[in-house]
């Protein structure tokens, strides 16, 4: 809105409505606002103001405090007379004190209701010093609206906000009043002073049984619940609530059907029902007290209350208790659950959440093992649950479906899920024999027709998918997803043999009917009619029902809401079964991914869904990999490469012997794709083309290719089942010296998987970018070490050529230059390759020597002496150590001297009692090779240690390639946490907003900028420690929260509008005052600060460091984050005029001596620009120890 720009919410509320509409010039409006003392520190324009205002804050806030306290005495003009001027918190507080004294006058009352109280609501919390006046008002005032406000504000004083002073309600952040009061040693009023008084008063009021007082009693009870965060008060509250319930709940309150909710009834019963409502609501807000029989008793009583909201609360309490102690709850409910009981009435209650709670309650009791022997009880509850499937509200029906499917909030159990699916496909809903229905014979036959759950559910879902409401679509897709999960669980447990999806579902019904002897004949007739209605001759199979549902689900992908689409895709992934073709799903996902609307968070969510799907059905590894590949090629910039790699890995292991080849192909196909073509839109829906149009995703793609190359090197041997230590090549032919062409032909015919991998890696070693080439060379070495002949010699030759650089000239025509320094040798890989070649050289030399020796021995026909054997063994060990530096090999099996050495080594070991396991002393550092130094995150933290030789070969091989099962590498992989968290269904933390898109909104970008500074502050703190700010007890996060709390006083997003102007003109003033020229927004308002007529002048500017400490001593002096900012910026400003700050957008690796490596997000100071390069300085030396150097302009964002 035009009229709001440049003003705070307080201004908006306070300003005269009539003067508002003509939109004022935006920049001129702000100053008035910014200088209201109390309001200003909390509002956005003033965030900016803080530069100058900050210094005055301490005194300002002290002023508020003393104002507030002495307000009653002070004779100041009432603020409302200056309608056009916004009122400050201090003014509001003052007027409350005054008006409370004169609350008997009509005028004061009006003033309170229309001006003071509404405006006070804007603030986050209420000053405890207001409490006496509020209590006075509550005692003396008759006006209902005033009293309502009084309870509202008392309730806001009560909650214990903890050290951070954060109340649950939002609003303009207020200072920590207690801290403030402490400063003012004499007159300060803290919460501790007033809370007991308030509690006393409210408790007395809550117990006042005067009829006139009745409504106040309810509100007092409500306000009291806000104190429930304080443990000392809790017992009192319980006592109070139970005391009221004692009086009102025990009287048998026969609810007459049909009239509750309607007006009528005698006064007494209405009052009782109101009290029942109030106390049940209060009880709901108190912490659950499982194991307390009174608590349970009272909650169960609530089910029969007349007030629908009270019933809802009681059901919610019971359903929560039931998850903890289902047996006790079921016993306590007893008759209520039976036909005609109060729970049946809930079915007809006009309160959606009450019915949802009922569904949950039924589910908890149904799944309880402790009730297995009480089938009668369970049957009551399950029949209730099935009836909820017919509920008119989608919310209730969906909840019931989820319950039937066996979903649970805490931990999903596969068996429960599987049984859930079985239940859904088999069970029949028999309509209840409600007495009221029995009477009407004609209708009865219609309503009592038993219905198959599956049909019911499918029909319901299909109709929901036709809805126009996005929440309904989203929820329906979610239900289908859950259905897929249960179905997958049933498949996994082999239950699907029982559930033949091709079978006519009606036969299940018939089977069920036969048990129900009496209804049998009738049943057949009914079922016949159901089938008929679905089309003559059409059998209803689970498969056909599912197919028609999935058809509707697929069409929902056309929804314009990306979140709905994401849910639909997840549902499709879950409903996809291993046997079906997934081409359709794949192309659907591919075309979806081309839509830029997809956020990174959503895409990663889907990727994690793939993970979960794989866990449920390992058979689908290849399918899932194919889908994951689409992500890798289409949106490399948006997905989490760690999670993707983890998926690759798990799927490769899960694919099994026959799927391994396909799985590896699916991963490495990334390497075969043509490079992205900027601007080409033709391949939008083709899954075989890389889409990386912007530098960020191009970079991400590059990283992904690196990952793929590394992955290939690590896992090719595993996928190809080719290992040097169990080579299929007979020992004698180990050194056959074929020429290269023949060798390749022989190799590829023997093991196409490995040959393919080799070819790909070789190509990458030539034409990839610098980083890819390095990794390709490492990958090749790994493969050379792990593979037997002729692969090893083939790689050796290749590496040799690569190191010489001889091949470079042949390729240089094809690959003119990618603008990179080619390095010292032809390929730039010389220095990297030489140690690798040396190992291979050593191995071959040793092998040659060994053969020579063997021949000598053979010719001379003499035995190997112990000395010779020892020498051989030492060489063997030395080479083993050397090899282990490059990649992991199983030491007990690996023979660097070739297969022929096996016998001799064995002889030596036997003689000297060296078991191969005792040789297994390889530390993690040795076992994890060089490649792991780069990708340590995805590697096992400890090398698997084989204790004997009897281990399963395949397992050893899996270990060898770092493909151990989850447990082994679970701890180390960051992606694992994400996956596990996802699988556990956790995650309520706040989302990150992508900053790239935020720029479209001016006010948002401002917010975000502020948010960033806050986060950066935290980062600076945390850098020294390895832990993130997420762990609650790390010092870093304490500081963060402190700074965010105090910084909260200046939340820019709150209650204010975008900065009025990004001031060019104001800059000089601002520079002179603070030197914060990097923050234009700050500049504009500090100018305003100077220009506006204020009474207190800011105190002299103190040094930033001092400021920083001050902000901790006294929260009111300034916000933590801004003091950090100033600290840093002051430092940066010493550099000179030309420089400015910036941060690295992407990782950058220095290509030469004068270049500087960057890590994305790193803060730098830009010194000057030259030819598309910035000369930047870092705050701290980087990993390479360099502080300054050149970086490409595009890699740095200038702030």
């Amino acid at each position, binding site marked *: 809105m035009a009229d709001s720009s440049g003003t705070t919410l307080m201004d908006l509320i306070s300003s005269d409505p009539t003067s508002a509409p003509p939109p004022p010039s935006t920049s001129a409006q702000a100053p008035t606002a910014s200088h209201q003392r109390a309001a200003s520190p909390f509002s956005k324009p003033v965030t900016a103001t803080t530069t100058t205002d900050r210094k005055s804050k301490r005194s300002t806030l002290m002023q508020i405090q003393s104002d507030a306290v002495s307000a009653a005495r002070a004779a100041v003009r009432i603020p409302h007379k200056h309608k056009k001027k916004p009122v400050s918190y201090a003014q509001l507080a003052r007027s409350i004190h005054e008006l409370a004294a004169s609350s008997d006058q009509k005028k004061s009352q009006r003033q309170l209701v229309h001006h003071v109280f509404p405006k006070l609501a804007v603030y986050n919390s209420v000053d405890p010093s207001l409490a006496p006046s509020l209590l006075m008002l509550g005692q003396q005032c008759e006006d209902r609206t005033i009293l309502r406000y009084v309870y509202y504000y008392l309730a806001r004083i009560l909650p214990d906000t903890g050290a951070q002073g954060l109340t649950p309600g*939002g609003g303009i952040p207020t200072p920590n009043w207690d801290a403030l009061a402490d400063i003012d040693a004499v007159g300060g009023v803290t919460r501790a002073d007033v809370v007991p008084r308030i509690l006393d008063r409210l408790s007395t009021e809550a117990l006042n049984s005067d009829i006139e007082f009745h409504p106040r009693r309810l509100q007092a009870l409500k306000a009291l619940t806000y104190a429930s965060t304080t443990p000392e008060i809790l017992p009192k509250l319980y006592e109070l609530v139970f005391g009221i319930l004692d009086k009102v709940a025990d009287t048998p309150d026969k609810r007459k059907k049909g009239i509750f909710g309607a007006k009528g009834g005698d006064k007494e019963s209405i009052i009782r029902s109101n009290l029942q409502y109030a106390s049940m609501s209060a009880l709901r807000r108190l912490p659950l007290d499982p194991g307390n029989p009174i608590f349970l008793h009272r909650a169960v009583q609530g089910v029969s209350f007349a*007030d629908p909201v009270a019933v809802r609360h009681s059901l919610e309490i019971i359903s929560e208790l039931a998850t903890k102690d289902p047996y006790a709850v079921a016993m306590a409910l007893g008759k209520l659950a039976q036909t005609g009981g109060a729970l049946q009435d809930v079915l007809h209650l006009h309160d959606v959440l009450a019915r949802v709670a009922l569904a949950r309650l039924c589910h908890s009791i149904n799944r309880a093992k402790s009730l297995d022997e009480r089938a009668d009880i369970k049957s009551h509850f399950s029949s209730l649950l099935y009836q909820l499937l017919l509920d008119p509200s989608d919310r209730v029906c969906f909840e019931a479906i989820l319950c039937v499917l066996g979903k649970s909030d805490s931990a999903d159990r596969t068996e429960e899920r599987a049984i859930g699916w079985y239940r859904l496909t088999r069970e029949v809903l028999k309509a209840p024999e409600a007495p009221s229905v029995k009477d009407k014979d004609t209708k009865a036959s219609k309503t009592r027709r038993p219905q198959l759950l599956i049909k019911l559910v499918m029909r319901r879902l299909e109709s929901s998918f036709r809805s126009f409401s996005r929440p309904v679509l989203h929820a329906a897709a979610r239900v289908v997803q859950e259905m897929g999960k249960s179905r997958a669980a049933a498949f996994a447990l082999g239950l699907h043999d029982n559930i033949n999806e091709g079978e006519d579902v009606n036969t299940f019904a018939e089977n069920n009917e036969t048990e129900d002897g009496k209804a049998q004949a009738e049943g057949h007739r009914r079922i016949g009619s159901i089938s008929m209605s679905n089309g003559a001759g059409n059998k209803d199979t689970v498969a056909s029902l599912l197919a028609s549902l999935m058809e509707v689900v697929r069409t929902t992908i056309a929804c314009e809401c990306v979140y709905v689409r994401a849910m639909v895709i997840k549902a499709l992934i879950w409903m996809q079964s291993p046997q079906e073709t997934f081409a359709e799903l794949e192309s659907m996902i591919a075309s979806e991914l081309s839509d830029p609307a997809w956020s990174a968070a959503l895409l990663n969510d889907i990727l994690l869904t793939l993970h979960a799907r794989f866990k449920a059905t390992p058979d689908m590894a290849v399918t899932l990999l194919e889908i994951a590949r689409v992500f890798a090629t289409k949106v490399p910039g948006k997905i989490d490469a760690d999670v993707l790699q983890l998926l690759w890995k798990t799927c490769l292991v899960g694919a099994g012997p026959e799927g391994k080849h396909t799985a590896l192909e699916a991963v490495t196909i990334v390497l075969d794709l043509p490079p992205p073509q900027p601007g080409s839109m033709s391949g939008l829906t083709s899954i075989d083309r890389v889409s990386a149009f912007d530098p960020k995703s191009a970079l991400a793609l590059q990283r992904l290719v690196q990952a793929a190359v590394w992955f290939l090197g690590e896992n090719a041997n595993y996928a190809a089942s080719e290992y040097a230590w169990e080579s299929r090549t007979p020992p004698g032919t180990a050194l056959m010296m074929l020429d290269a062409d023949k060798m390749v032909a022989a190799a590829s015919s023997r093991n196409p998987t490995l040959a393919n991998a080799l070819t790909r890696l070789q190509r990458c070693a030539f034409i990839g970018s610098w980083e890819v080439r390095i990794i390709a060379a490492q990958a090749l070495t790994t493969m050379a070490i792990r593979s037997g002949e002729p692969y090893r010699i083939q790689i050796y030759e290749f590496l040799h050529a690569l190191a010489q650089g001889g091949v470079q000239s042949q390729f240089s025509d094809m690959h003119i230059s990618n603008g990179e320094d080619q390095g010292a040798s032809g390929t730039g890989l010389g220095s990297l390759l030489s140690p690798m070649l040396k190992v291979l050289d050593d191995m071959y030399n040793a092998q040659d020597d060994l053969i020579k020796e063997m021949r000598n021995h053979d010719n001379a026909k003499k035995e190997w002496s112990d000395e010779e054997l020892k020498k051989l063994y030492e060489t063997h060990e030395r080479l083993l150590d050397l090899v282990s530096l490059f990649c992991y090999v199983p030491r007990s099996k690996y023979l660097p001297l070739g297969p022929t050495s096996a016998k001799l080594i064995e002889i030596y070991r036997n003689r000297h009692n060296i078991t191969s396991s005792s040789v297994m002393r390889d530390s993690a550092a040795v076992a994890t090779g060089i490649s792991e130094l780069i990708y340590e995150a995805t590697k096992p933290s400890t090398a698997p240690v084989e204790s004997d030789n009897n281990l399963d070969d395949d397992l050893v091989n899996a270990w060898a390639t770092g493909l151990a099962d989850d447990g082994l590498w679970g701890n180390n992989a960051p992606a694992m946490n994400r996956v596990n968290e996802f699988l556990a269904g956790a995650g309520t933390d706040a*989302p990150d907003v992508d900053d790239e*898109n935020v720029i479209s909104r001016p006010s948002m970008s401002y917010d975000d900028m502020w948010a960033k500074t806050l986060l950066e502050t935290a980062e600076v703190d945390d850098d020294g420690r390895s832990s993130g700010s997420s762990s609650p007890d790390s010092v870093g996060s304490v500081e963060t929260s402190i700074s965010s709390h105090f910084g909260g006083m200046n939340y820019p997003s709150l209650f204010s*509008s975008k900065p009025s102007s990004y001031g060019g003109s104001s800059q000089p003033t601002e520079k002179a005052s603070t030197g914060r020229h990097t923050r234009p927004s700050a500049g504009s308002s500090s100018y305003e600060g100077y220009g506006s007529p204020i009474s207190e002048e800011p105190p002299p500017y103190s040094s930033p460091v001092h400021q920083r400490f001050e902000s901790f001593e006294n929260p009111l002096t300034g916000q933590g984050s801004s003091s950090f900012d100033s600290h840093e910026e002051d430092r940066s400003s010493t550099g000179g005029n030309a420089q400015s700050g910036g941060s690295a957008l992407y990782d950058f690796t220095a290509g030469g001596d004068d270049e500087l490596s960057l890590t994305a997000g790193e803060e730098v100071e830009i010194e000057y620009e030259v030819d598309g390069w910035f000369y930047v300085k870092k705050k701290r030396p980087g990993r390479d120890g360099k502080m300054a150097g050149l970086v490409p302009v595009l890699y740095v964002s200038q702030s």
Partner: protein
Amino acid sequence: MLLAVLIANSEGNILVERFNGVPGEERLHWRSFLVKLGADNLQGVKNEELLVACHKSVYIVYTVLGHVSIYLVGKDEYDELALSEAIFVVTSAIKDVCGKPPTERLFLDKYGRICLCIDEIVWKGLLENTDKDRIKRLIRLKPPTEF
């Protein structure tokens, strides 16, 4: 848990916010996430047409009413559909108080009463009253059911 109720004007400035069970450091993220969501999607949306989003296991339902946009964030039993119910209560209460879909001015003029309404609708992170008349009575300090 109904994690948050947030009302913003068309520019993305937050007018009312009530967080429940959201740690202080995360509020800022939620704010900017929601406001961005609105900025991206609420253009040209009809009054009270419901939009949906989710983040991990948290659901978001939001809509526009006159010149203000309303966001609800919830988890567990407060899924999309429960939030839809809740947002319906909030919008109808605001319409009741303002007499029509509010302009920002009107909304601010009725600010205090709207706060009281929200106080009656969402109480410590749980949906409380859903009935219009009941809310109306309660904010005037009358009992929920009159005698």
